[in-house]
């Protein structure tokens, strides 16, 4: 049962072959067994999940047609609000925050009869590439427990890889869905900017943040996206673009599909095991009928500095709201202090080191005298990064790259040098800067059986083609079917 896909669970629950409660229990038992070693969850809400599952079974027995994700256990990244369920962003500053409302994605999952089992660990406020910035300790990679699961949505990726859930939500600002998906050997989809409402997502960088699913198969990601996507009166950045049935796009046919390969960009600094897996993956796409086309992304090498200036500037503004007044932690010394001292002390005590570093960097690049040289310049180069992709998409349908230049690294290996940590995001950040949809699918293993991901990037709002290409790749290989020994 733990190996079941989202679509299999839904059909079993809808037909009554298996009850939602049985499914929920099986996944909760699995979570109880493996989570102590992995630390993938900040919170497991078993009672609430079982009650929700029992309600689905009751309504099915009464003749109601179950929703599109009926009975599917889902884990939610802990930076997404679930009404009544503690939501911390893995930060001390929100340690006891209980949201008074549901994020739109959570409401849509509930409307589709998915069962919410808990909140997953992540880097604090989604800032990190290794999950080591969590106030509640790092998540361990299910394939190699001395290694990082990636970040920032490391708990969601590890939970799906360990089959604690068949579906989890994450958020992706610079690769925070795709990189942990690659590191944990699962599928991770970052939809187009604007495809999915961010209402109820604790904002990090508002021009980049996007919510998406982790699953074991591309088909499951397509089913999840169909349920999550669409306009929302509560989010002015949620697009009115029509939402197709993404699963219907998975025809398995990619004959003639043009796959762009930015060979110069992926030439340097790529681990040899990642390189070998990537080369085999694009060969497999060609074997399935795709045509490989060389493309140039001349400004992609600048995407890291652009990203870390733009994202931190936006973060410094977004995180100004955590001041000890309306919610979250307040310094216990507040009685002896004036308001400004209370703000500064609360933020000092409540935020971890990486969040402070990014608030500082973002404040600096927005400050008088530095705005033009750093922030404005970064926004201009961002335009050039977008234009590179626009030109590439005139001659190709998707672009292929490794998701990460390196396999999952050891816990503690990069925590002393923030810049080295940032450089690991080299292949993921440009999709966020350009707003494009991108997916990571398992494409093999580096030395030591460490998972490697293939990243495909598509045109704005053309997740259908992106998913069709990823699904065709999955049909030609069996990497997605392999599971870690736990």
């Amino acid at each position, binding site marked *: 049962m733990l190996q079941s896909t989202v679509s299999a669970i839904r059909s079993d629950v809808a037909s009554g072959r298996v009850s939602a409660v049985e499914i929920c229990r099986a996944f909760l038992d699995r979570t109880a067994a493996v989570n102590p070693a992995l630390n993938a969850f900040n919170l497991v809400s078993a009672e609430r999940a079982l009650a929700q599952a029992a309600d689905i079974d009751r309504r099915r027995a009464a003749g109601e047609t179950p929703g599109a994700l009926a009975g599917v256990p889902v884990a939610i990244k802990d930076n997404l609000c679930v009404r009544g369920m503690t939501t911390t962003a893995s930060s001390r500053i929100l340690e006891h*925050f*209980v949201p*008074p*409302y549901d994020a739109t994605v959570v409401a849509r999952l509930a409307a589709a009869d998915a069962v919410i089992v808990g909140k997953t660990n992540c880097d604090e406020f989604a800032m990190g590439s290794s999950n080591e910035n969590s106030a509640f300790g790092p998540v361990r990679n299910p394939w190699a427990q001395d290694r990082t699961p990636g970040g920032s949505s490391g708990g969601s990726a590890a939970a799906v890889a360990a089959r604690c859930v068949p579906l989890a939500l994450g958020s992706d600002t610079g690769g925070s869905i795709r990189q942990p998906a690659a590191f944990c050997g699962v599928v991770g989809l970052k939809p187009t*900017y*604007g495809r999915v409402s961010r209402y109820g997502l604790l904002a990090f960088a508002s*021009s980049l943040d996007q919510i998406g699913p982790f699953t074991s198969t591309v088909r499951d990601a397509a089913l999840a996206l169909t349920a999550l996507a669409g306009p929302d*009166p509560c989010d*002015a*950045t*949620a*697009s*009115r673009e029509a939402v197709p049935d993404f699963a219907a796009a998975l025809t398995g046919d990619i004959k003639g599909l043009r796959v762009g390969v930015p060979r110069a960009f992926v030439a340097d600094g790529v681990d040899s095991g990642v390189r070998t897996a990537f080369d085999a993956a694009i060969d497999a796409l060609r074997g399935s009928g795709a045509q490989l086309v060389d493309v140039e992304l001349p*400004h992609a090498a*600048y995407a890291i*500095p*652009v990203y*870390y*200036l733009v994202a931190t500037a936006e973060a*410094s503004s977004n995180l*100004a709201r955590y*001041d000890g*007044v*309306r*919610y*979250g*932690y307040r310094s216990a010394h*507040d009685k002896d202090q*004036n*308001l*400004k*001292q*209370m*703000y*500064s002390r609360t*933020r*000092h005590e409540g*935020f971890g080191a990486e969040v*402070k*570093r990014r*608030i*500082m*960097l973002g*404040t*600096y690049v927005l*400050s008088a005298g530095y705005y033009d040289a*750093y922030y*404005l*310049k*970064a*926004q*201009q*180069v961002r*335009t050039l990064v*977008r234009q590179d992709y626009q030109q590439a998409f005139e001659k190709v349908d998707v672009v292929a790259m490794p998701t990460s230049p390196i396999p999952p690294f050891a816990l503690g290996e990069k925590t002393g040098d*923030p*810049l080295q940590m*940032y450089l690991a995001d080299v292949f993921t950040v440009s999709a966020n800067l350009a*707003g494009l949809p991108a997916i990571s699918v398992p494409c093999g293993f580096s030395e030591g059986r460490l998972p490697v991901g293939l990243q495909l990037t598509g045109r*704005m709002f053309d997740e259908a083609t992106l998913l069709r290409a990823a699904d065709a790749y999955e049909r030609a290989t069996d990497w997605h079917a392999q599971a870690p020994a736990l």
Partner: protein
Amino acid sequence: MASTLTVADVERIAALAQLELTAEEKQLFTKQLADILTYAEQLQAVDTSGVPATAHVLGERVERDDAERPSLAIDDAVGNAPDAAAGLFRVPRVIG
């Protein structure tokens, strides 16, 4: 620019960000921010004359009717406050 970042600069930024830092954090951030900003200076080599800035990538304006809608109940809105009374947020003195 960045290579000359000083502890005094870090203190000035911290004050703008309403963020108290320890002496150790000031030293560490002075070095780490200088490293990151030095790395970011490669952008100065890119010719961006006449290139518009991208603030966001959405091509459409999404609006809704300016109609009255229910909002959070007061008890819910102040329910997470560290210090609330009579439906209000209570804060330390503002002046002094």
